[in-house]
């Protein structure tokens, strides 16, 4: 029983980690809290839904949805945040703009798509579950755990061991002088948006598959969880996002199992407030600071 709970927690935690990853990448490199991030999650899920409804296999729908969500992210960043960057607007201006944009986008999506819950066509993914020592784990769940692990490793490798990562870190440290160091800042900003949007989109598809319930506001719910995860993990910290995602997921599942399922959604936010009180820099302790 406990073992099954822990595995379920691992799955939920991996979904949070997967979701938080792109969000924290955006903050880490671009320095903005982009609240439209949750919307790309919804976009990914819907695109995959439409593609599979038109007969595409999930293995085509998944990368396609991820790529297109990434493109949406690039467009939104260019339309809303690039002007603010150019005007050297205060950091909270970008937060406010994306806050307004989220409202706008969700309301429009809602009007266009309705809040009805939709489901993937039956048989879109192999539904048989593997059972080991009495613990059941489905194909989608396995995929989610694997994706979270692979993505985090890949991102850490890119950031720490490649030329691209060097450029990204330069951009994160000194956006003003990165250009002088031969870094094409504009292109990197677009690349980061594309990557983060694709991560959000992919996790939207995977999580949509797991719960098989898709509706426009699914990204907003995830986004609120995402805050808890990224603060606990440390804003902008990739490793932290993974660990914090797992912690929140596990604790939620245990709360649902041993306290009451209606309280599980409070777990993340209680952790958030506790983190801010005790260790605002997050698990691994790198505080996002402003330079004098």
């Amino acid at each position, binding site marked *: 029983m406990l073992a099954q709970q822990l595995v379920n927690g691992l799955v939920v935690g991996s979904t949070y980690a997967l979701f938080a990853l792109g969000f924290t990448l955006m903050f880490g490199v671009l320095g903005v*809290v982009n609240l439209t991030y949750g919307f790309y999650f919804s976009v990914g899920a819907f695109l995959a839904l439409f593609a599979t409804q038109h007969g595409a296999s999930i293995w085509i729908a998944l990368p396609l949805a991820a790529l297109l969500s990434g493109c949406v992210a690039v467009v939104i960043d260019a339309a*809303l945040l690039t*002007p*603010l960057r150019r005007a050297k*607007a*205060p*950091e*909270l*201006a970008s*937060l*406010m*703009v994306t*806050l*307004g*944009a*989220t*409202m*706008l*986008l*969700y*309301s*429009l999506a809602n*009007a266009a798509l309705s809040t009805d819950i939709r489901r993937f066509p039956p048989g879109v993914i192999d539904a048989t579950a593997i059972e080991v020592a009495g613990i059941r784990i489905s194909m989608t769940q396995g995929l989610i755990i694997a994706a979270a692990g692979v993505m985090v490793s890949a991102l850490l490798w890119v950031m720490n061991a490649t030329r691209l990562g060097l450029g990204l870190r330069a951009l994160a440290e000194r956006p003003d002088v990165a250009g002088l160091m031969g870094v094409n800042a504009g292109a990197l900003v677009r690349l980061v948006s594309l990557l983060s949007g694709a991560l959000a989109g992919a996790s939207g598809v995977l999580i949509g598959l797991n719960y098989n319930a898709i509706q426009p506001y699914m990204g*907003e719910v995830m986004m*609120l969880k995402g*805050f*808890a995860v990224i*603060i606990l993990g440390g*804003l902008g910290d990739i490793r932290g996002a993974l660990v914090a995602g797992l912690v929140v997921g596990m604790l939620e599942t245990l709360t649902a199992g041993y306290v*009451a399922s*209606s*309280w599980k*959604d*409070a777990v*993340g*936010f*209680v952790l*958030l*407030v506790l983190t*801010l*009180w005790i260790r*605002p820099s997050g698990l691994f302790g790198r*505080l*996002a*600071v*402003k330079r*004098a």
Partner: protein
Amino acid sequence: MAEFLDDFLFTYQNLVYSLGVNGLLALSIYVVLAVGQLSIGQAAFMGLGAYVSALLTVKLGVAFPLVLLAAMITPALAALVVGAPTLRLSGVYLALATIGLGEVQRIVFINAEFTGGALGLSGIPTRGGLISIYGSLALALVAFVCVARSKIGRAMEAMREDELAAGALGVDLPAYKLGALVVSAMLAGLAGALNAHVSSFISPNDYGFDAAVTILSFALLGGIGSPFGPVLGAFILTLLPEVLRPLADYKTVVNGAIIVVAVIFMPRGLLAWRMGRAGAAFRRPK
């Protein structure tokens, strides 16, 4: 004439109340923005005030003035809990923490029995009304004007423009930020209590994320050069759906669009006028 006024009030009573309440909410976000911070928890503070006041009135029959006092103190305490650790950090942390506060609170209201669960509380007796709502609004406006034209107002504008320089000039940044957040929570709580006692019914979802964003759009539309801007913004955004009926279904779209447009193209808002910051005439003394 008096008869006409009575008729008018009867027909538009709720609208008239909303205008005043939203004006108070606009002032509550104004204080936070005026020190260069962002709170997305104004709806939560309002909800806390509403629930505390409704419970005190319905379950304990406490006198209305005391109810209002409690409705201001409770959110102030919540503001301390969220603000004290975050206000020393970059502004992003306060914004995210206040979102967290709103969510925790919503979950508690939905799940706790004494708050009536997801259905909320109903049968709240009518208290206060026009005089207390508009009296509070007027008092708050006068207070903010007085504060703006003093060393406090100068310090607030300075830290909004350039926190680092303000700190180097002796402005105690954490104290000012925390003070602003606490005052803002008290105002929002007051608005929540006044509103609960003229609408007889409250539910957890009235005080969610959407409400917080709407409150922010008041201030951004009106502009924060003076306390009058946010109130103007609140009046416009409250009246707009009444005047243009078709807009009523797209309130969130409009509010979202207003924030986007205001931040990018109109950072000073509609009322771009900036109030002077001295408590004496600028004339050159002889």
